[in-house]
Structure formats: structure tokens, C-alpha cells
């Protein structure tokens, strides 16, 4: 499958939510979409699933413009939006049976349902009404319906919000398993979620793509821009003042026996800081910082 976005912009009442996005995705791929809340992730996802039209630009799926190819896309799509509701009065099994029909699954419907129920560990809950399930279980039902038709393109928007750590790990594995021959797009504002599983990462902020590439490349870009410093006693005021000025960004603060240890990301790291190997999260922060500086110019 091939998805191509060219010069995509989206305005809401004059405010740009997406600004001239260009992107090409080919299967197989396991892509992490990261960016702060309001970066335009959900907008972009809705466009990818054909529920929102760009103000300008074009999206093509397998070489055909999306607006002429929605059926083709939807037949191959699994989607879990960020904010969704289910038919709570139905049992898990009934809901999946209903969705299977919408997806046009005729043959092996029962097997497909069994498969996704087991993948999402909902066996015990299959005869329960959805309204009796916990938030995490409902999230799993959402995932189950998205993978019911074994989609070539699976798009999940903030799937791990509200999940406990154990469930989160389960989910990540679920997505990575599926990504061998298809496209999985995972949107999140939590770097951890994608660190271990995504082979590609897209950083989005304020409607702009700041980075597209492998996670290691993102880390590479942040080399020489991450450092630590340990401050004793009263000098704290000074460093906070510097952050305020935008000279660097503090990513973590650890109280040590001698004072406070700060981990910072900066465009030009002052010499007083000790350089360290950036984590993906540092790299992401650096990427955002750089983006802001560029935009500032």
C-alpha cells in the first residue's frame, strides 16, 4: 500500500491546523506520530482515514486520489480514533459481530471474531455488555474492532491513554506483531510508546512536520545538544532564568546529596554542561526546540 500526501494544509476558521504537509508512506511500516496535544496529529489521521478533507493539497492512495478511492481505502483500513464510543448495550461479541458486517466480512466471521478477542485478551468478557467493562477493556474492544478485518492500514490515535503499564506493553506488542506486512500508524504524545516498536517516526508540531525518519536518526541529530549540570545551593535561580530566556530546556530535575542535577536540551549547549548521549525523548525535545527556534526566525 502506498499513501502520498502532497502540500496538505488544513485551516479551521482561518487558523492553520496543518501547514503544507508532504509525506509518503509505503508498506510495511510501523510509524510513530509524535507531537504535543494540538500539534495536528488527529487532524492528519482523520484525513488519512477519509473523514476530513484538506483545505488544499492532495492525498493519493495506491496512486488514486483519496476522494475517488474512499471505498478502496475503507476496505483495507482499521481505525481507532482518540475519542470514541461503542454500542454499550451490546456484548463484546455482538458488537464485533455488528462491526464485522459493516466491514463486509462474510466468510469466517466467527473465526475473525475469535481471533481478535483472543488477541486483545477479551475471552472472559466476550458475553459481557460493553457498558460493564472498564476503560482499558473498552479500549481493547476498540482495538479489536480495528483489527477485525486484518487491515492493510491500521491507524490508532492515542491508544494507550488511560491504560495501566501492563496493558500498554500488551498493546505495543500487538501493534508491532501486526506491522510485518502492513502499515501501522500510531499516534501518541508519549515517546515511550513508540520507542521500542516503531521503525519510523514523524514529529509534528503546530501543523508542521519537524522530522521524518528512523528513531536513531532523530537521536543522532540531538548529539551534542544534551547535557547535564549539577548545581549547588542557591544557583538554582540562575539556571531557571536561563531556561526562561530559551537558552535551553530542562528535561529532568533530580535532587542529589550535593544539590540538584539538571538534564537539559539546547541548540547550543553552554560549555559548563557535561555532554551525554541523548535518549529518544531528549531527541524529541531537541527537535521541538529547534522547530520553535526556526519558526521564531
Amino acid at each position, binding site marked *: 500500500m502506498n499513501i502520498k500526501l502532497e502540500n496538505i494544509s488544513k485551516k479551521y476558521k482561518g487558523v492553520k491546523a496543518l501547514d503544507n504537509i508532504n509525506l509518503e508512506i509505503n508498506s510495511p511500516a510501523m510509524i510513530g506520530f509524535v507531537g504535543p496535544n494540538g500539534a495536528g496529529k488527529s487532524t492528519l489521521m*482523520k484525513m488519512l*482515514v*477519509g*473523514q*476530513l*478533507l484538506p483545505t488544499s493539497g492532495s492525498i493519493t492512495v495506491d496512486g488514486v486520489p483519496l476522494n475517488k478511492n*474512499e*471505498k478502496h481505502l*475503507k476496505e483495507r*483500513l*482499521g*481505525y*481507532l*480514533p482518540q*475519542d*470514541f*464510543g*461503542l*454500542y*454499550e*448495550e*451490546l456484548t463484546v461479541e*455482538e458488537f464485533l459481530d*455488528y*462491526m464485522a*458486517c*459493516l*466491514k*463486509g466480512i*462474510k466468510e469466517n466471521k466467527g473465526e475473525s471474531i475469535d481471533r481478535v478477542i483472543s488477541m486483545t485478551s477479551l475471552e472472559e468478557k466476550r458475553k459481557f455488555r460493553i457498558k460493564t467493562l472498564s476503560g482499558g477493556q473498552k479500549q481493547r474492544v*476498540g482495538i479489536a*474492532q480495528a483489527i477485525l478485518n486484518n487491515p492493510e492500514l491500521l491507524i490508532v490515535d492515542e491508544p494507550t491513554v488511560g491504560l495501566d503499564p501492563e496493558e500498554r506493553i500488551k498493546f505495543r506488542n500487538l501493534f508491532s506483531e501486526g506491522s510485518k506486512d502492513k502499515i501501522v500508524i500510531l499516534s501518541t504524545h508519549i515517546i515511550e510508546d513508540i520507542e521500542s516498536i516503531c521503525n519510523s517516526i514523524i514529529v509534528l508540531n503546530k501543523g508542521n512536520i519537524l522530522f521524518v525518519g528512523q528513531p536513531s536518526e532523530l537521536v543522532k541529530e540531538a548529539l551534542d545538544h544534551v547535557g547535564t549540570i549539577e548545581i549547588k545551593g542557591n544557583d538554582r535561580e540562575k539556571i531557571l532564568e536561563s531556561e526562561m530566556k530559551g537558552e535551553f530546556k530542562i528535561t529532568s530535575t533530580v535532587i542529589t546529596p550535593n544539590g540538584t542535577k539538571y538534564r537539559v536540551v539546547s541548540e547550543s549547549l553552554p560549555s559548563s554542561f557535561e555532554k551525554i548521549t541523548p535518549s529518544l525523548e531528549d531527541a524529541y525535545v531537541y527537535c521541538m526546540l529547534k522547530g520553535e527556534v526556526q519558526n521564531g526566525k
Partner: protein
Amino acid sequence: MANKILLVKNEIKYMFKEKVIILLILATCIILAIGINSLNMTNDFNLFYIKRNSSTISFNSAKFGATICSLLFALFTVLKLDKDKRKRSRTIVESNLDYLYIIGARIFSIIFYAVITTIIGMIAVMAIQKLIYNIPIDISYYLFSYLIIFFPTLLFSILMISGLYLLTESLDMSVITFGMIFINSLESNNYLLTWVRTNLDIVSDFAGIGPIGNTIIYNRLLWFLISLSIFGIGLLFRRRYESGVGSSFLINMKSKGLLTLTILVILGSGCTYTKEPYTMELMNDLDISIDENICLDGICPEIKFDSENGEMDAHVSYSFINNGSNTIKFDINDGLKINSLKVNGEEIVYQKIKNKNVIEVSIPDVEKVNVDIFYSGSVKCDKNGVGRGMPGYISKESIYLLEASNWIFRPLIAEGDMIDISGYYIAPDYLTMVVPGRLVDVETIDGNKKWIFEYSSHTADIGAFAAKYEKAQIEVNNVAVEFYYTPKHEEYVDNMKIVDHIKSMMEYYTQNIGEYYSKDYPLKIVEVSIYKRGGHSSENVITFAENTINRDNSMYSILNKNNEIEDFRKVDIYANDLNLIAHEVAHQWWGTGVNVIDDTPWSCEGLANYFSYKYIQKEFGDMVSSGVFLQPWKYRVNELKNYYYINNDDMKEKLNERFIRSLEMEKRQAELYYLMPLKLLKGEEIQGEKVFLEGIQGVYRRHLLKDLTYDEFLQEMNLTREAIDVD
């Protein structure tokens, strides 16, 4: 296609699982069962205790059911369409397929359940009719009531509210708008607008569906197109890609098929509404100017009824005495097309007066003018009158043509002293025709009968009535009375002693007013359908609506073995029914016998009501006559004082003319029908019954076949306006 059917099946399956639909079907059955007796729950006193049979049971249940179930189905539909918005499940659902398919599948499933509900409801009502009331079932009435009235109402509700919901994307807005359309239908009298429960009060047992079937079907066609239009508009404005109304419309408009279809159904609805073929505006009371320079001398109608097609073919010759006019105007019926018009034997061109059902014919300035008009077609009635106040119809089972329909084109000229009327009606031989005047002969000509009649009358008001009548012939003081009624109501006529009552009315009037005006012409009393409510009297023919002699057999308990009143519970209905006939029979004395010149409150109505009241008082006693007549009359007369708008000139200017006109009409009615008889009762009170009635006998004798003005009456009765003032 196969996928779409699967989608619908899926929706049907899951709607069933929700149980709401089962409740809806159950509720419908209960509502329909309650609806069987809905006529007795209205304030339409005249329709209480109508005899139950397939026509009443099926129609009443369907009409009542349609009213409530259309709301229930509309609500159910809008909740189903709003479901994904409420449950925030739309994005998930829409990621699988075009959301239009889901909307379509849901609407189709609801329509499927509407069909199921209709069938189950209909069977339930049939079961009640058969098992509880033990009345045999005539399936044709059920098919009419349920397939043409009940189900379409549900269908229109589903389509309209779907359209409104798609258009407004708001549950509240669509429900409110639908509610307005719904209420508008209930408040209207126009048969085209009453899509919820039709404008019929009842389906006639006498005439069947025939006279109104076409209009009901036409109403259904119109509203099918209107609801499709609303649905189409909804689809055109269906929100797309989270856009607003305008941008969504621009996207949807690209679907040329939908756009074209919607435009077509909108145009279709408009055309269907404006080009409506069954009704016209009857404007008899508006600006009729009578030409006093010319008078009608004779009229010869030669009519052939094609009752199978509801049409007639007419040749009517009029002879006039002309004293200097050069035109004659005729009031016509818009449904009857003029094929040819001759004046003194020569074909001429006539003018149709714009926006009026009036034609103008030029005539030469000679004394004797003969006009021959050849016309054919079907009689139209007023939009508001369909099924309730039809002045005329021709149907397979019956024919009802009152002069008010202008079925005989009415010349707008002075009527002479006596008009010679002679002619014939030809109708299928299974029908018994009631002709005006005297029946001269009946000839049978291949499947038809020709009813030849003659009459010398002082008006040209002639009617034609036909049905498969039973005829009771009675003679009262050398006057022949023919009572025509349908064999369907024979049992009631027998049990409730209707013929005896007619006889005793005649005797009472003869004794207390005077001899019947003619020994030559029989009095004809004719049962007609409920599609024209109440009664009517013109010349020697009286008609009254079927409800008068089509009541439930529980009424039989009113009379005991000796025909005395035993059970007083329903006696007011019985008294009212007899009063209707007594009122019309009294018109044979006041109206036909004596030409009472209108001078509000003075008219023949006051005298007719006074004498029918006297008759009911004699038969039923003071308690009944006072409760059923006197008290309501007094109440209505008291109300007259409250006509603030009319009595106050300042207010009058501010109100619209139509409203004022309707108020004035209502006021006049109350004065003619209620105030005047109360005045007469006051006179009777002053003079004593004996003296008063003797006075009236004198007046009748002196004015028989002549005019009677209010002043003449007062003078001859030794009364004054002040003396009989009622406060």
C-alpha cells in the same frame, strides 16, 4: 448490492435485539385496539355509538393509530439516526464504509419494522373484531385503512424526520420541525394537507370508499413526494467531512443523480399540489349578482351517469324570459367541461370569468331565450369539504348531487313564479334513483334505467340521489311519503321505529301547521352518506346523513317492547337523530311550502327548529328536549354577546377579513338556528301554546306557496320585535 442487503439485515437484527422495537409493536397494537372506539372519545357527539363494522373498526383504529404511531416512529427514527452522535461511535463506524450506507440501512430497517407493525397491528384489530365483537371481516376496508392510511403515515414520518435530521443534524431541531408539520396537518381541513390521519371523520358504511378513495390516494401520492423531497434535501445537506452545511452541500451536489432526483421530486410535489384534479374553490356566496331583468321559466335536464367512472354526461336546456338583458351568467362546476353551448339553437362562444366558476353567455334582445348546455365530467368539491361536506359525488355504489355543487349549472337570474322542470336521469340499473318532483316513468335500456320526471317548482334547485335503496312507502293524510334507506341499516330502522316517527312528524306538522303543500308530489326522505354531514331539504326531497340510522344496536335498549322510552342513557343521541329528520321535514312547510324571506334572525331555520323542538318535546318529554336543545341554544345565544370583535368597530378594522367573515357567519348561524326559535318560544309563552299555534296555522294558510317576511309574520301573529326579545 448484496452488501447493502446484508447491512439492512444486520440493522434489522440488532434493532430487534434492542427490544425497543418489540415495545413499539406492542404499543402500536394497544393503541390500535384503543382506536377502535376512538369516535366515542371525540367531542363529535353526532358520531357517538356508530355501528361497529369493518369500515368503522378498521378506519377508526388506523386513524387513531396513525396519529400516535407516526410520532412514535418519528421519534424512534430520529433516535436511531442520532445514535452514533450520542454514543460518539460515528468515527469508528464511518471508518468502515460510507456513512450514507448506514443511514440508508437504518431507515430501510425502520421501514421494514413499520411494515411488520402494520401487518401485526392489522391482524390484531381483525382478531378483536372477529373474536370479541363477532363481526364478519371485510378485508377491503382493512387494506384501505392499513395500507393506504396507516402505513403511509408511518412511512412519511420516517422519511420526513430523517430528512429533517440530516438537514439540521440536531435531534431537538428535527423533532420540533417535525412536530410543527404534524400539528399543521392535524389543524388543517384541506384534504391535501391532512397527511397524518386524513380529513375524514369516518368511512361511510353507506357509500363505502368510492367517493373519497381517489382523494385519499392522491393525498398519499402528494405526501410521498413531499416526504421524499424533504428526505432528498436532507441528503443534499448531509454533513460531510466534519464540514458545515454550505460546504457539505457543495460536496453532495456533485452527486448529479441525487441532485436531479431531489429537484424532480420537489417539482413533482409542487405540480401534484397545484394541479390537483378533484377539488375546486366553491364560491357561491361571493359577490353573486342576480340579474333581475331576466327570469327562468323552464329547465330540462337530460343526464346520463357513468357511475363506474364517477362521471356524468349532461344536456340541460334552460328557457328564459328576457326583459332587456344581453347576457346570462351561470355558476358552474369546474369539474364539468362544456362541450357545446347553444343560444336559441345556435352555437355560441361563451366567456369564462377569471378566477371564478362563472361563465357569461351573450343572448339576443328577444323575449324568449333558450340556452342549451352540453357538458360532461366529474363533479368537484371544495378542498375542505372532501369526506365531510361534499355537495356532490358520483361513485359506483351511490350518487349524491346537491344543487350546491352546481352540477346543474345555476343561472344567476331571478327565479320566476313557477319553473317547469322535466327531464330524465339515466343510471346503471342496480341503482335506485331518487328524482325531484314526480317520477313519470322508468325505462330499462341495456343495463341502465332511465328515470323520467317532471316538476313544477319555484326554484331550480334540483338534486339527484342514487344507491341500492330500500324504499318504504307510507301515506299520511293523503300525502305519499317515500323513505329511501340502505338495506344495511334496515335493522336499525325497524328497531328504532324510524318510519313510525316520520309518520308521526308528518301528522304533527299537519295538525299544528297545516296541510302539506302539495298533493301531487310525494315527499321523499332519503338516507345519504356521511360524506355530507347533517341533513338537507330542497323542494320535495329531504336527505339526511347515514349516522342518523346507523348506530350501534346497544341503542335498541332505549325503547321497550311497547316502544316507550325506557333507557335514558343514550336517548339524547336518539333524540338528536330524530330531530335532524324532523328539522328537515319541517322545512317542507317552512322553506318549500312557505317561502320565508331571510331577515336575520328571521328565516325558515328558526321555524324549522322551533317545530322540530316541539315534536321532540312531545315524543321525549321536557327533560330531553330541554337538555338536548333549549340549554345548548341558550348557551349559544349567550355567547353571542361575547362577539367582542364584531361588536367593536375599532377592533374589526384591525382583523383580517376572512376571520371577520367566519365570525360573522358563526354569529348569523347562532341567530338563525338558536335565537329565533327562542324568540318563537317566548311568543308562545306570552300567548299560550294554543293561541300561538293557531296564529301560525293562519300565517301558513295565507302564505302557502307565497313569500313571508318577518314583519308580516309579526303583524299577523300580533307580536312585536320587542315582545319576543330574548335576553
